[in-house]
């Protein structure tokens, strides 16, 4: 495989484009100059750091370090997944459920892919495990986040409907069924959309990367398909576990609706 390596000067030329943004913001008084600058600096710092970490990880090929890096990624993903929710479960429950669901989903799917499909030697080689996990986690995170968000907001909105069923003697899973359905659907729609639009509306980033790196398009497409299947599988497992665990926490063994387990509302919850 051959690819064209980039020089720092190449990047500097591209970075000029961002400076044009900053200039536009100044000229039009958009007040975005600072944000653009901060975001750009963050991106450069984070990616440079990632480069160092990845090089170190690739050179040691230790299951311990690969596992540790994976765990750190999952913990960050858990934090991101709950950060954007308007109404969270009180205490550590939202974080715990979101992170737990992603831990289960990402571990199952990544391990499956590494041991049966990609099969690097050794199977835990960080060069394969970490990028795979990253792609799977990024998408699962979106699904889990949307699923939990829909679960809590819909349970609040549909309080009287849920309690009407409970009061008539339905168990909590029956009473929660419409809410569970909505939450599952909103968690899974992004991946469904993305599968449906792939190749028509956009060329996926990983495939683009492989083609730029000199890979045969047919091979790049096979890899992309594998990744999409893995992402879809992980998102399904993650959303399902998170939504059902969330619903279990929003109800109790006496089949009551427990909205009191939601944290108090923040006035202006951050939205994506």
């Amino acid at each position: 495989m051959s690819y064209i390596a980039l020089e720092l000067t190449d990047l500097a030329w591209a970075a000029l484009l961002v400076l044009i943004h900053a200039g536009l913001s100044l000229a039009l008084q958009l007040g975005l100059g600072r944000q653009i600058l901060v975001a750009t600096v963050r991106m450069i710092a984070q990616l440079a750091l990632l480069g160092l970490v990845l090089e170190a990880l690739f050179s040691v090929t230790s299951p311990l370090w690969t596992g540790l890096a994976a765990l750190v990624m999952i913990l960050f993903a858990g934090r991101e997944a709950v950060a954007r929710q308007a109404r969270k479960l009180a205490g550590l429950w939202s974080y715990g459920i979101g992170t737990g669901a992603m831990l289960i989903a990402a571990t199952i799917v990544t391990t499956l892919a590494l041991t049966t499909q990609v099969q690097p030697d050794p199977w835990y080689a960080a060069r394969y495990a970490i990028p795979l996990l990253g792609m799977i986690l990024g998408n699962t995170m979106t699904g889990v986040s949307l699923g939990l968000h829909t679960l809590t907001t819909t349970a609040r909105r549909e309080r009287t409907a849920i309690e009407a069923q409970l009061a008539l003697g339905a168990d909590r899973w029956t009473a929660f069924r419409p809410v569970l359905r909505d939450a599952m659907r909103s968690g899974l729609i992004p991946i469904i959309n993305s599968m449906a639009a792939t190749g028509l509306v956009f060329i996926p980033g990983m495939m683009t990367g492989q083609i730029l790196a000199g890979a045969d398009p047919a091979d790049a497409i096979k890899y992309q398909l594998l990744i999409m299947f893995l992402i879809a599988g992980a998102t399904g497992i993650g959303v399902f576990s998170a939504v059902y665990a969330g619903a279990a926490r929003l109800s109790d063994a006496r089949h009551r609706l427990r909205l009191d387990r939601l944290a108090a509302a923040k006035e202006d919850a951050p939205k994506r």
Partner: protein
Amino acid sequence: MAARGHDTPGLRSPMLTVRHLSRAGLVEPVDLTVAAGEAVAVLGPSGSGKSLLLRAIADLDPNEGAVSLDGDARETMPAPRWRQKVAYLPAEPGWWAETARAHFPDAEAVRPLAERLDLPEDVLDRTIATLSTGERQRLALIRLLLQEPPVLLLDEPTSGLDQTSAAKVEEIIRERLATGCAILFATHDKAQAGRLAERCLKMAAGQLSEAAL
């Protein structure tokens, strides 16, 4: 134990027994009983805790205390089973599907009660959103009665109704009493309490006390 309680006087055995029921919103633990065929009214202004009491008996909110039906403690049965027997009708009933029909497993069974309560003939074909508050309240009562629960916990069962409809609901409540139902109902209407109940309790600021009819 019954010293402070609001117990059924005389020889009738209690159907619903509530002992030391406490929950958030109630100032002190509640003791009360309702006998088969007896109606007990809980009077009090809105916000005084009437609904909190009924919801706690139905086990819809976390609460503590000993509640039993015919001697069977609430904890000995799954909560859904308990609520099928000790059925709670909220003042503003909820709906989980778009059409009225979807809330009834047996549409034919609805008709006789719907006719008696002056509901429009096509009521089941309507969407919930197009029904008036009063129509929804009567329909929810039917939904509850069709399960034939031995104990009814009714929260302001006629609050959204005009006098004619309210009278018809009261008539149906009386029929249920005659068949041996135990009924505990919340109302802010003293006259209604007098018409239906044998005994009357008063709820004020989360405290329950005996009241004259």
